[in-house]
């Protein structure tokens, strides 16, 4: 079991020694059963920290904000930002390091192992509790969750409310850390890409009709993009205006910016947006699941990204987000890489 006091002690130590600017962690807000992101600046703040299966957010997203904030700091503070990171989140940190988004010394990783569990999927829990108001969720002794609702207590077997991605996850232990807490035994999973096999077995027409049906629901809120730590581009394909505008940016430059897609929620634009985003994340997505979690209309976005993760592995032998010294997938090649698509 990860000892929360050990986590608090280490967090307190680095804050006291002013080794980090602040720490991004999880807290339990009052009147809710789930964790929420918290930003700890003072040593005494560490008492707010929690670590349990309700900590499903990927906090690496806030490291992206930090980079923007740092650019405006006067004078610049060279200290790293501390972050509580689970296995999946740590892979996001690795990808950002591979892409030189920031340096290793810009982040102080308080790694926490998920051990043999993972994190809860809110929607699966809501289904299990049939919409009853949930007050508390705790991991019980018998590999189950003890859930307290307004109507009383329930015991639910862990696999029924753990996130699907956790059920097939081999990265229960963070792959990068400055301080690591919890059991370091790595899980093994026989078929890490099992979730995409069912979709793969469908015919082309059936796949197209499935995705058109799902993407019709999209309201183009871009929550998926906003939630993703790897979607850090200052100017994204969907933005119809330039963001990096200075006094020297000419009117022509702004006028010539291509409008790749319209804002309207229609089949053509929705498919374009999601497929382009998936391709832009090929070899970069580490399946933190935030996109799917954030989506208010339940589009199964992870499946698109998982498929590309599988291709990275099968075609190029590339494991996404494990080795910070490894170059990004699309910026390297091996001599034996498949070439049959080059005509």
């Amino acid at each position: 079991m990860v000892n929360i006091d050990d986590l608090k002690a280490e967090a307190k130590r680095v804050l006291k020694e002013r080794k980090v600017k602040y720490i991004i962690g999880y807290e339990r807000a009052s009147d809710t059963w789930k964790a929420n992101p918290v930003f700890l600046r003072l040593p005494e703040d560490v008492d707010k920290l929690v670590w349990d299966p309700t900590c499903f957010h990927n906090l690496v997203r806030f490291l992206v904000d930090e980079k923007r904030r740092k650019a405006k700091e006067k004078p610049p503070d060279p200290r790293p930002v501390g972050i509580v990171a689970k296995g999946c989140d740590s892979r996001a940190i690795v990808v950002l390091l591979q892409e030189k988004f920031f340096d290793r010394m810009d982040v102080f990783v308080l790694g926490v192992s998920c051990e043999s569990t993972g994190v809860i999927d809110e929607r699966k829990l809501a289904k299990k509790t049939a919409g009853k108001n949930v007050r508390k969720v705790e991991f019980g002794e018998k590999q189950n969750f003890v859930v307290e609702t307004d109507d009383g207590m329930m015991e639910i077997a862990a696999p029924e409310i753990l996130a699907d991605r956790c059920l097939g996850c081999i990265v229960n232990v963070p792959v990068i850390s400055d301080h690591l807490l919890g059991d370091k035994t790595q899980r093994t999973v026989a078929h890490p890409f099992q979730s995409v096999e069912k979709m793969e077995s469908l015919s082309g027409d059936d796949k197209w009709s499935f995705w058109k049906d799902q993407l019709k629901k999209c309201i183009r809120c871009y929550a998926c993009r906003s939630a993703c730590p790897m979607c850090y581009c200052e100017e994204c394909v969907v933005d119809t205006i330039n963001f990096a505008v200075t006094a020297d940016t000419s009117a022509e430059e702004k006028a010539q910016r291509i409008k790749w897609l319209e804002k309207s929620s229609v089949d053509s634009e929705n498919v374009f947006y999601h497929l382009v985003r998936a391709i832009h994340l090929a070899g970069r997505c580490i399946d933190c699941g935030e996109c799917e979690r954030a989506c208010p209309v339940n589009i199964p976005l992870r499946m698109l990204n998982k498929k590309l993760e599988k291709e990275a592995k099968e075609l190029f032998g590339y494991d996404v987000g494990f080795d910070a010294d490894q170059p990004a997938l699309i910026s390297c090649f091996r001599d034996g890489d498949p070439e049959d698509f080059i005509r």
Partner: protein
Amino acid sequence: MDKILAKKDYPHWLKKLKSYRIYAPRKKDDVWNYEIITASDGDCLEEVMTAVPAKGIVFPQREFFFEFGETDDNGTRITELLPEDKSVVVFGVRPCEGRAVTLTDDVFGGEFEDPYYWKRRNATTLVGLSCVDPPSPNCFCLSVGGSPHSKEGLDLLLTDLGETYYAEALTKKGKKLVLEGQKLFTDPKPEDRKMVDKIQADSRKKIRRELSRIDNVPAKLRGMFDSSFWDDESMSCIRCGICTYLCPTCHCFDMTDEVETSSPLSGKRVRTWDTCQFPDFTMHSSGHNPRPDKASRLRQRINHKFQYFVEIWKKYQCTGCGRCISLCPVGIDIIKVVEKVRDHGA
């Protein structure tokens, strides 16, 4: 006009509404949304909180304004594209969504009436379903001038009495809808009305959350414009826009020209939803942005709902549906933010 409809007769009523396009909440992939249904889909009405509120029917994510095109003689043809002439009825509308529509009515009416909104609005009959139990753990309608059985904005209000619906026709459109049902509707007995009153009184007690004593909030917000409070509150915001897209009272939109052919030029001017939470919402062409950071954008959302709208319309621009709380990926809670404003500096 009060009437009773047996629940088993609800599908028969739908069958009689041949001239209407019918919307009702449907569940797909574990998400409830208003979908077009046929009479055979009308098993029963569930008391649910849809992801996209009923505003999406009178103010859709995308709608056409007009078509433009280059004519042979180098002129320009502009053809208005109003919404089609089709009566619409929406069943299962939460009372908070009905109230929210009265707020969007204020915005889209006035000196410059929005013809697209009003064409849809006038053709739409909103049939509310009283909340016997709050459909969301984050409901707080009572705190912002609403209630689980509010009639505002609705044309007809149904209350579930177990085997029957108690139907209160509130407007001409509501009455017309009941009359379409002809003999399916019967007159209520006194005990039916008593049951409705009891259900409505009980439902008020079941609302879990409260945002109390907020009369001072508009004035407080005025004084907090430059406060670092907004930096702290917005730290975890990922500016995804969900809070505003799915808010039943939010109405921000964008207008763009969607070009279909470039030579000769033809296309449509289109309205789509937009949100003050996106970084480019207020960005000038020069690059100057009056709201360059998350703090100023969160401040705008709260100020607009609890100060500016109050200053113009004397109502909060919030009906307490709780969607923004339930769906925020990082748990930013409008009740807590406004409570902190209320208590700020105290």
